[in-house]
C-alpha cells in the first residue's frame, strides 16, 4: 500500500512538472536589459576614434525580440583624425554607429559599433 502511494505520488509529481514546463513555454517571460557596443581605434595618445551605441533590448525566453529604439544613444568621439562622416542607424532589429575617418597618413577606415551585441 505504501509502495503504491509512493508510486502514485511520484507519477503525480511527474505530471505536475510536465504541465508546469508546458505552461512555462506559453507564458512569455520578457525582460529589457541594456545592450551596448564600442569600437575604439587608437594609434597613439593623440590619434584615436571611439564609436559607441547603447539601448534597451527586449528578450523573451532568452530570445532577442527587438530593440526599444527610443532608448538608443549613439556616441562618437575622436582626436587627431579627420572625420568624414558619422553614420547613425537605428531600427527595431539593429542599431549602428559608424565613424568614417581619415588619418593624417591618408588612410581611411571605419569604427563601427552595433547592437544587439551581447543579447543575440
Amino acid at each position, binding site marked *: 500500500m505504501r509502495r503504491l502511494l509512493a508510486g502514485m505520488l511520484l507519477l503525480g509529481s511527474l505530471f505536475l512538472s510536465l504541465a508546469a514546463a508546458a505552461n512555462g513555454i506559453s507564458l512569455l517571460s520578457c525582460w529589457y536589459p541594456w545592450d551596448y557596443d564600442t569600437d575604439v581605434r587608437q594609434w597613439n595618445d593623440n590619434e584615436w576614434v571611439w564609436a559607441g551605441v547603447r539601448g534597451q533590448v527586449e528578450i523573451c525566453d532568452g*530570445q532577442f525580440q527587438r530593440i526599444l529604439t527610443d532608448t538608443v544613444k549613439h556616441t562618437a568621439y575622436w582626436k587627431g583624425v579627420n572625420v568624414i*562622416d558619422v553614420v*547613425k*542607424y537605428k*531600427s527595431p*532589429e*539593429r542599431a549602428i554607429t559608424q565613424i568614417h575617418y581619415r588619418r593624417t597618413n591618408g588612410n581611411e*577606415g*571605419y569604427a563601427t559599433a552595433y547592437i544587439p551585441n551581447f543579447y543575440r
Partner: protein
Amino acid sequence: MKKLFIFIFSFLLLSPAYALPSWFKEGVYVKYALLMPNDRNSKEFHLFFLHPALISHDVYQKLLQVNERWKDAPEVSKVREDKLIGLSVYGNVFLTFKVINVTEESALINVTLELYNISVNFWRPLDALNISTLLVLNLTDLTYRDENGSVIGRPSFFIDPQNPPKTGDLFAKLDIPGVYVEDDLKIGNISYTTHMNQTLLTYARNFTPPYITVTAKPVSMAWITKDSSLSGRYRFRATYDFMSGVMVGSLFTISPEFLEMGVVFTTFIDYTATRNLEELQKNGEDKVKWWLQGFNLYETNIEFWEPKKVEAPESSMKYFFIVGLFLLIIILVKRLMGERK
C-alpha cells in the same frame, strides 16, 4: 583640295562638344571590386540600404522570399515595404558598367551590382544578390536622362579628360521618397595633383600619373520613420586616369547609378586594398605606390595605351654622319698641319 577642305570642315562641325573617349564603344565593360580578405574580423563588413519603392520587382520578390526562409529570426527583421532594407555584406562585391548600345546622341549603360554573403535586415542570410539597371546616357553633354529626358546625373565610371565636370555641375539628383536632403549632389573639387607622384595599383593593372580626382560637395541626409532612422552624408569621390578618363577607383555613399538601382545609402571600404596599402606603408613604398581604398578596377576589355620604349628607326643616315665626321677630322688635321708649315 576643295574636297579635303569640305571633309575637314564637316568633321569639325559634326564632332560633339564632349569628345567621347576612343574606348567608348558597344560591348566595352569595366568591372570594379571590393574583395573581402580571408582574415575578415567581426567589424569588417559593408552596409547597403535599399529602398523598397525604388528596387526592381525581381529584387524585392527575392528579398521577400527570405522572410519565409528564416522562421527563427526575430519578427522585426522581416522585409517590409515601409522601411529601408539593410544589407550587411560579408563577402565580395562587384560593380560592372557595360556600354550596350551606342547611337549618334545616346548610349545605353547596363550597371550591375553583385553582392555575396549577405545578411538581410541583419538577421536573414542570403548567399548572393544581383541588382542591375539600364541607364540612358546622353552623349552630347554626358548626362544620364530619365524617360522624360530630364537630367538625373552624370556617369561615375568615366569622364572626358579634355572636358572634365566643373564645380557646381549636377552629379546626382537626390529625389528619394522619404529621404530628407538639403540639396542635390553637385560637383565640388576637381584635383590634378592628388597622387601625382604615385603609381596607383588595382586588381587589373597599374596606372601612372597624372590623375583627375573628382569630389562631390557632401550633402547631409536623413531618413526617419516612427521607429527607425538613418542619418549621414551623401559623398562621392573618384580618381580617373588622365589618358583614358576611366575611373581607377572610388569611395562613396551614393552614386547616380546606385540611386537608379534603388541603393539609397551605402558604406564600404575595400579591406583587401586597405591591407595592401598598409603593406606598402610598412615597406616604405607608399611614396611611389598607392592603393585606393574603395572600389578598384578589377577587370575590363578596354585596351589601354601602354607607354613603350621608343627606338630610333634603322637608317643609313648614320653612315653619312660617320663619314662626315671623318672628313671634318681630316680637314681639321690638314689645316693644323698647314698652319705649322
